[in-house]
């Protein structure tokens, strides 16, 4: 059962469901809007189903499909436990960063991320601060001075503006 519900199979199933969902949705549209979805969606669903069958028939112990020619060889760690923990940790950092963006704004979130990530992963204060200054300088120089980017207001910024107005 666990072999059937492996992440590999679930992902293939997800892809299959995406194609099926797309086909169902596109069947409501006029031909000129749905033609490509219908033509290729059927092929995609068929291929995804074939892949799912191949995956299900493959013993769980068998190594996953060899790395495709197009892929950069992995530079992940050899230790699977350390690798898994580090992967989850990195995702947590990324999710945290993205969540912070609407709260404090992109420039602040990014500079804070650079400082905290570098410091938390063994970079000393000097190197962390230097890197942060580099990123902050890049944002200011390129995005503010050259491109005059209009930064969407952040939740915290809006709150502070409200307090100031009061």
């Amino acid at each position, binding site marked *: 059962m666990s072999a059937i519900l492996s992440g590999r199979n679930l992902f293939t199933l997800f892809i299959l469901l995406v194609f099926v969902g797309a086909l169902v949705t596109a069947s409501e549209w006029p031909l*000129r809007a749905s033609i490509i979805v219908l033509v290729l969606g059927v092929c995609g669903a068929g291929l995804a189903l074939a892949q799912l069958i191949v995956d299900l028939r493959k013993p769980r112990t068998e190594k996953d499909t060899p790395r495709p020619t197009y892929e950069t060889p992995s530079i992940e760690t050899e230790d699977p436990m350390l690798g898994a923990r580090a992967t989850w940790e990195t995702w947590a950092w990324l999710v945290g960063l993205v969540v912070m963006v609407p709260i404090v704004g992109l420039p602040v979130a990014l500079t804070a991320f650079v400082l905290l990530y570098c410091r938390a992963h063994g970079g000393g204060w000097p190197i962390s601060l230097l890197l942060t200054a580099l990123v902050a300088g890049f944002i200011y120089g390129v995005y503010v001075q050259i491109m*005059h980017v209009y930064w969407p207001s952040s939740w915290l910024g809006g709150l502070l503006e409200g307090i100031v107005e009061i």
Partner: protein
Amino acid sequence: MERRRHFIGRTCVRALAVVVMAALSAVGSAAAQEYYKGKVFTVVVASKAGGGTDTTARVVARYWGDHIPGKPKVVVRNKGVQVSAANELQHSTRPDGLTVAVFAGAGSLGPVARKAKGVRYNPLDWGIVGSVDRGPSIMILRKSAHERLYDKSKPPVTIGSVSTDREQDAIAVLGGEALGWNIKFVLGYPSSNQIYLAYERGEVDMFGSGTADIIERFVKEGHTIALLSEVARPDFKNVPTLEAVLGNKKPTGLLWKAYRSWGAGAVDKYFALPPKSKPEHLNTLRESFMATMRSADFTKAAADQLGEGATPVNGQETHERIEAALHIPDDVIATIRTLRQKYGLPQVTSKK
């Protein structure tokens, strides 16, 4: 005496008003100068690169920066195509006076006028800066296809068109209805350039264009005829007008009204500030737009790239034209919808 005192008083008030206006204008100009100085002014073209809307926007953008107080750096970006671009721009463009969008009248107003379902923007919410009218359209036809145009027993003459509304489509539909043209639309080409290529390789037999050098280029090659012009053009005197071709078959009633109202007729390529933009930004840009239009550099470039017939229209007048273009009687809208369906032209709708 009384009259004279009154006259002097009135003159003084007028003079004062002029001085106040001039002072306000100077203050406004100084404020605008301060505001735009060193900034990037973005012209978002609601069309793919290379077409008429894009060319018009790029020609204007090239000289506009010099006439906006503070001389901001002007950049041009392409975003989506007409309706989808307008749908998104209505909600996503910042009303800070630093982004102006450029639309084709037919493509962006036509679907609004006939209350198409997929439209989620209102052109009248936008601050209309001004517009550029190019020359009227001329229909180009492959000589070898001329016979088929009037013979329904033969394969239809194929007309290349983009996905969005175009005034040339209205001419072809009118030809189909009033003159019995044997036609079939092949639409979906991403830009005018793609239609020209499709014509070159024989994929389509007919298309419409208002751009003088394109018309000349094909007619010169010898296997093409300029079938008719929407209205008389001084640069193509020998091309018969639509009315002349129609002759006594010129329709009256709903068909003619539908043709006249199709695709916002009187509005060509217009420049607009997003909804909720400040009036001072709109005024500054309207003035600088017209100043650009009057400049010698622009006039020369426009004549070269847009044709001799290109004429500027100020913001207020463009706004009025847009208002007029959007108010079409329901029976005319119904006729346009029916005709579009008959000729396989998109309705812009979210469901079938």
